């Protein structure tokens, strides 16, 4: 598994500094343009905002230089840029709502505060998680934590329902989407669990239609994961969250075992519940209708959101209406669930492509780190986190652009919402730590060089 990687040990910290500077200038510039577009003047707090963003970026740069000097130089600039662009768009939607009074949405201030919290947590991860392998100790704690978090919205009194999905909790007026945090916990759990069970799970069982099925006795874990996903689907009625967790598990299982059969089995297992949801659950059925034919007059009013989103996309065209000059306020939840439509409207197809490429690059860096890491746990964790970001982007953007039915997930780093932003910053921290492990010269196993390993904790023995 651990491959000899052709990295020469270049920290590329200067590259990261330049990219971070670029991200801050672009992101703060976007914020300024939103102000110019909406009200013909620069936003009042632009100076403070710019300095704040620069200080946070500098802090990240310093911490990375200190704690993870070999980290991938692209990950943090990507994340910073996405976060700042998200803040600019949230402000654009907010200002449009103020101008036109169609609905209301929170200003960008909240998101800025959450961004600070997110960056601090990311720095915390880099400072206190000195070696990602320590996470493996928490395999089963993570499992319990994840399960509790995921089921928390079902607890009467604190769970709350939005758009037909019971995936939020609300404590003292603050709402939180625990699935975001559960995502991290489960990624750690899956990585820890699978890395110790991978050899057994990879054993060949009966051969059906040319595919080696696993042994029947090894079906336990996937059945548990499936059962859990079903519980989410049935009780929280959210196909997106359910798909995300089950997809994460199946893909990590596949990466761990290299058995294509697990992918096939996973896909087949998810089909019946998807069909069940589509036919039996009212709001999922509506979403299926809105996926297939939202614009017909019969469906128009029940598919208002997706239609307004599509009109926004069309209004944007190739080059977009301009930052602060579109009408994203017409779309319900334009600052959260439909923030992609808002971007597509104001920045056009060009901007939408740029955003997708930013995500693709982020996923690519995560998988690159997964390939570079010398321990199975790290590989699985990096691959899993990278894939879950990709899956989330696909589910959200695919929902807005009618590739798949709409679900209740949000775009990582962009969408308004503290829980999502903070948790994704934690993921960013873990990815930076993982990429550092992947690129650190000590990880290289080049014959004759005898990399110094004494200073580092001995790799744990794999089960």
């Amino acid at each position, binding site marked *: 598994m651990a491959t000899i990687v052709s990295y020469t040990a270049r920290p590329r910290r200067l590259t990261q500094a330049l990219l971070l500077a670029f991200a801050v200038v672009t992101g703060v510039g976007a914020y300024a343009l939103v102000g110019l577009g909406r009200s013909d003047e620069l936003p009042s707090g632009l100076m403070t905002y710019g300095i704040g963003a620069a200080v946070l970026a500098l802090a990240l740069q310093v911490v990375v230089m200190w704690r993870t000097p070999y980290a991938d130089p692209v990950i943090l600039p990507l994340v910073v840029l996405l976060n700042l662009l998200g803040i600019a768009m949230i402000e654009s939607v907010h200002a449009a709502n103020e*101008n036109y009074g169609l609905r209301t949405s929170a200003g960008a201030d909240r998101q800025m505060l959450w961004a600070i919290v997110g960056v601090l947590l990311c720095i915390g991860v880099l400072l206190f998680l000195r070696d990602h392998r320590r996470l493996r100790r928490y395999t089963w704690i993570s499992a319990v934590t994840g399960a509790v978090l995921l089921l928390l919205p079902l607890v009467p009194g604190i769970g709350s329902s939005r758009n037909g999905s019971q995936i939020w909790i609300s404590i003292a007026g603050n709402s939180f989407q625990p699935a975001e945090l559960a995502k991290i916990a489960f990624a750690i759990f899956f990585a820890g669990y699978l890395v110790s069970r991978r050899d057994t799970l990879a054993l060949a069982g009966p051969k059906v239609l040319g595919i080696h099925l696993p042994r029947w006795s090894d079906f336990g874990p996937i059945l548990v994961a499936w059962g859990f996903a079903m519980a989410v689907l049935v009780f929280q009625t959210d196909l997106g969250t359910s798909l995300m967790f089950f997809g994460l598990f199946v893909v990590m299982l596949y990466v761990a075992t290299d058995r294509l059969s697990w992918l096939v089995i996973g896909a087949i297992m998810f089909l019946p519940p998807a069909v069940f949801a589509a036919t039996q659950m009212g709001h999922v059925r509506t979403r299926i209708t809105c996926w297939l034919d939202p614009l017909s007059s019969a469906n128009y009013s029940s598919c208002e959101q997706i*239609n307004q989103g*599509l009109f926004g996309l069309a209004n944007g065209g*190739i080059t977009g209406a301009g930052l602060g000059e579109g009408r994203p306020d017409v779309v319900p939840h334009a600052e959260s669930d439909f923030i992609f439509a808002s971007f597509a409207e104001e920045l056009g*197809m060009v901007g939408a492509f740029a955003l*997708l490429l930013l995500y*693709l690059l982020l996923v690519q860096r995560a998988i690159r780190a997964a390939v570079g890491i010398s321990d199975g746990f790290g590989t699985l964790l990096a691959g899993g986190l*990278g894939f879950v970001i*990709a899956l989330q982007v*696909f589910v959200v953007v695919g929902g807005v652009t009618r590739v798949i039915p709409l679900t209740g997930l949000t775009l990582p780093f962009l969408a308004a919402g503290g829980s999502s932003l903070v948790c994704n910053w934690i993921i960013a921290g873990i990815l930076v730590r993982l990429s550092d492990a992947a690129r650190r010269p000590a990880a290289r196993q080049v014959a004759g060089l005898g990399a110094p390993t004494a200073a580092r904790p001995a790799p744990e023995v794999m089960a």
Partner: protein
Amino acid sequence: MNKPLRHVWLVVSVLFVLLFTSTTYFQVVAQGRLNAHGQNLRTTYNEYGRHRGPIVVDGEAIATSQASGDTYGYLRSYDPGAMYAPITGYYSVVYGFSGIERALNDTLSGEADALFYHRISDILSGKQGRGASVELTVDSEAQQAAWDALDGRRGSVVALDPETGAVLAMVSAPSYDPNRLASHDTTAVQESWSELNDDPERPLTNRAIGGDLYPPGSAFKLVVASAALESGDYTTDSVIPGPGTFQLPNSSSVMNNFSAGRTDPCGPDDESTLAEALRQSCNTSFAKLGISVGEDQLASTAGEFGFGQRLEIPLSVTPSTLGTDLDDAQLATTSIGQYETRVTPLQMAMVAGAFANDGVVMEPQLVEAVRTGDLSTVAELTPKELGQPLSASNAAQMRQMMVGAVEDGTGTAAAIDGVEVGGKTGTAEWGEDRAPHSWYVGYGQMDEKKIAVAVVVEEGGYGSRTAAPIAQDVMEAVIKP
């Protein structure tokens, strides 16, 4: 674990290709269809969300846009509303727009090609695009005088500057308050809309340039007289027959020389000079004159005056018409402005203007200038000749005869001390048992100031009593003796 990771990367790539494809589809391929979708309010918002330029009269904005703080962004408001409504039109989020708002929509919204560089500089300087302002040729005092003089009676007043074609006044009554249609309260707008459309007095029609048009009655004798002079066979002093009654050729109808059944002849021995016939407005004289001048000469002179021409001033003007293939009886009634003769008040003002401008008809225009927000001028009025129905000397003869009609004839109520005023009244029959429409068509000039006026008051009775005083008020407002 590298091979499965590569596969995962492959799967991710495929998923993203799907996203790129779907995004492209909705933003490029299906863009037109989505933008045209009936429920898509963004098209409306894009249209109405622009800071539209004002419409200006004599330096005062009569139509302006203010930030409205609601979903449409800007509210169009009109002050004064009704007096200018036939010109400005309305700008409604429900029913679209009319008048100048429609004819110069691109200019007002800032989308016109002529504003391209202005737009680019707005984009580069980060300013929000703003439409150009449109300045009208209208003289606010003339407009106000016409509006007050008409005093809500059904009818219309048009005043022109004969030398440039600039429209100095354009009133159509009854009018409406365009603010009621520009409101963003769509229910109220819908109510106003159906109320205005159901109103039998048709307030939404601009009677000055459209609607059903009017028979000009005796005012049309100006055109017949011009055609006679242009034929070369007549002068003001030519003696023409004018009997008390005229049995129309090949017809059982008899034409009386005057309205209300008066059958006194136009002069001794049933004849008079052309000038005298115009002064008294003798019907039989002009019926016979029309027949002898002939349809061809009449049609060609009328065509030079602008009859039959589709004008954009930039409001669309319904062409005025004569009948065609007329027999002598029809030609006789046509010549006194009845039968199929239908005119707009604007057309009649153009007729009067030609006499005051040495026989040349200028193309009527409503827009004085188009200026951008920083007051640089994009376009200005350039006078254009539309036609020359009669020579300068014939125009002088016409003026002489028209002055006669005002000094000692049917048009005395239009006279202004110290001003050369020439004109012709009309009393147009248009329906059984209905009072006739009242007309006055004429010009006034003093020193360098000139004005041509046409007034029509629906069912106003005698033009000499109803229409002529209105013309007097309007001319006084411009010439100010």
